[in-house]
């Protein structure tokens, strides 16, 4: 068990290093001079030189890279070009809002998807199955940047039930969580159906029925429990989609999270902040995948011996 854990953790290190390298190189992909791009074409040459020095762009590339990695490991992601505040502190302020939205969206998705997927699998080939899966495919196809404004028109403007934007109460969370969670619910419902169908065909389910276990119990206590193992991986993988979707959802609903900070920073060409946001989201994603891998090893002992 310990060997499996160590192996997974060690495998994540080169990936993290690769992610950091790619994020570091982003600023060097800016066409022309990044300092000039940040200040605009009309900026005075002195100001451009000063910014170039403060960003460390006047030093050799390897030296910049070494310092970026060293600072990133110690949690220093530089200074925001726009506000002059440390990037890490500004991102840390936004983490709770994004975490709240991401968790709420995942909960919405799971609550919608599991019953839908189970009904579709159990009633395979019936109208309920086709209905559930058509709904799921429609859910994947509806972009959240369209669904969000439509939900806002209906539930915030027309009915006046929910606030249209901002963060504060639980009511503020409902529309962003639904518009972000629906696509995920659609994907999860399809996966739940496929995973449960695989299990329902297994001999142990038939054996349980032969022993007199009721149909409902054979599904919930036997097949569904096992089908949840691959679903944990899917949920974790979809966490990445939730983080990316949050960038859009936060922009629509003026949700003060990392996604909105990222888009605002892109608008201001605040490259250190853009790098910081991208790095944090990617590292979180790698971390969630690592934890999922470890959990998977606990849930399914066969994985540890592969």
């Amino acid at each position, binding site marked *: 068990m310990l060997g499996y854990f160590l192996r997974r953790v060690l495998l994540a290190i080169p990936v993290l290093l690769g992610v950091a390298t790619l994020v570091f190189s982003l600023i060097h992909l800016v066409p022309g001079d990044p300092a000039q791009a940040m200040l605009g074409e009309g900026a005075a040459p002195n100001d451009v030189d000063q910014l170039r020095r403060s960003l460390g762009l006047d030093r050799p590339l390897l030296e910049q890279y070494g310092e970026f990695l060293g600072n990133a490991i110690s949690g220093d992601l530089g200074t925001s070009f726009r506000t002059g505040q440390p990037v890490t502190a500004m991102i840390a302020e936004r983490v709770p809002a994004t975490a709240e939205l991401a968790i709420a969206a995942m909960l919405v998705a799971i609550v919608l998807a599991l019953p839908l997927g189970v009904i579709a699998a159990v009633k395979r080939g019936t109208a309920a199955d086709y209905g559930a899966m058509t709904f799921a495919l429609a859910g994947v196809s509806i972009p959240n940047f369209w669904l969000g404004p439509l939900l806002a028109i209906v539930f915030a403007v027309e009915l006046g039930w929910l606030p249209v934007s901002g963060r504060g109460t639980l009511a503020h969370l409902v529309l962003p969580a639904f518009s972000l969670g629906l696509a995920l619910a659609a994907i999860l419902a399809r996966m739940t159906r496929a995973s449960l169908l695989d299990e329902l065909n297994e001999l142990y389910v038939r054996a349980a029925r032969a022993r007199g276990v009721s149909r409902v119990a054979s599904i919930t206590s036997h097949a569904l429990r096992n089908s949840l193992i691959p679903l944990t991986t899917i949920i974790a993988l979809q966490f990445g989609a939730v983080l990316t979707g949050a960038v859009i959802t936060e922009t629509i609903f003026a949700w003060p999270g990392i996604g909105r900070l990222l888009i605002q920073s892109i608008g201001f060409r605040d490259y250190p902040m853009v790098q910081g946001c*991208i790095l944090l989201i990617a590292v979180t*994603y790698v971390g969630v995948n690592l934890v999922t891998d470890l959990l998977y090893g606990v849930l399914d002992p066969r994985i540890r011996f592969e």
Partner: protein
Amino acid sequence: MRSLFRSGQARVGGVIVASVVLAALTSPWLLPWDPSAQDLPHRLQGPSGSHWFGLDELGRDILARVLLGARVSLLVGVIVVGVSSIVGMAVGGVSGYYGGTIDQVIGRIMDVLMAFPGMLLAIALVAVLGPSLVNVVLALAVIGWVGYARLVRGQVLRAREFEYVTAAKALGAGTPRVLIRHVLPTAVPPLLVQATLGMAGAILSEAALSFLGLGVQPPTPSWGSMINGGRVHLLDAPHLTIFPGLFLAIVVLGFNFLGDGLRDAVDPRHK
């Protein structure tokens, strides 16, 4: 092909996709409205007999712009999927066939690219390269090829052990010939499925980037930028948001239906 169109979903998907492609290609001749002509006195006018989808904030016909936007979306989809699948097939084929160090190096590069969730890397790339249609295509292709490469690599790993491949090698066929004539063709059916679903993904991603102001720039219409532009008028002129979004959702649904139908035809176990 017959089993593909036996599926109702695939038929619906095929009809949707074919209709939108046809409408997008023929709209300049079919529609009496110029997508860039402005009618400022009637700006934000709702749907009517003279303008079926209404007019936008500059008094331009929304139907004409939605159909012009369809051209942009389909073009981005075709180029992104084309480039990604060709690169993915080449890289995945080489990686799976040769194995060893090449496979390890390619595998680690793919791991790093896959470590970025969804579109995040595309957002980052367009943010630094600057918003434009070319950069959107480039960014989406940079993240897009990995999925195809993984798929092809898996297929190649399986196919290189087939007896007819061993026979071809024994008969003296060179590596490029074995790879191109005998191994890679086995990956084509699943690749087609992924490419069809990839069209839906690429169209959605382009629209998302344009919605964020990072994609196609005005005055060229894109469904994403039209939805974004309509947000300001959500209360007084919701048709600005509704129609481009509806078209986007329907086209994506069409490609998803078609992709699902293809998958069922290629691998009936999915049914």
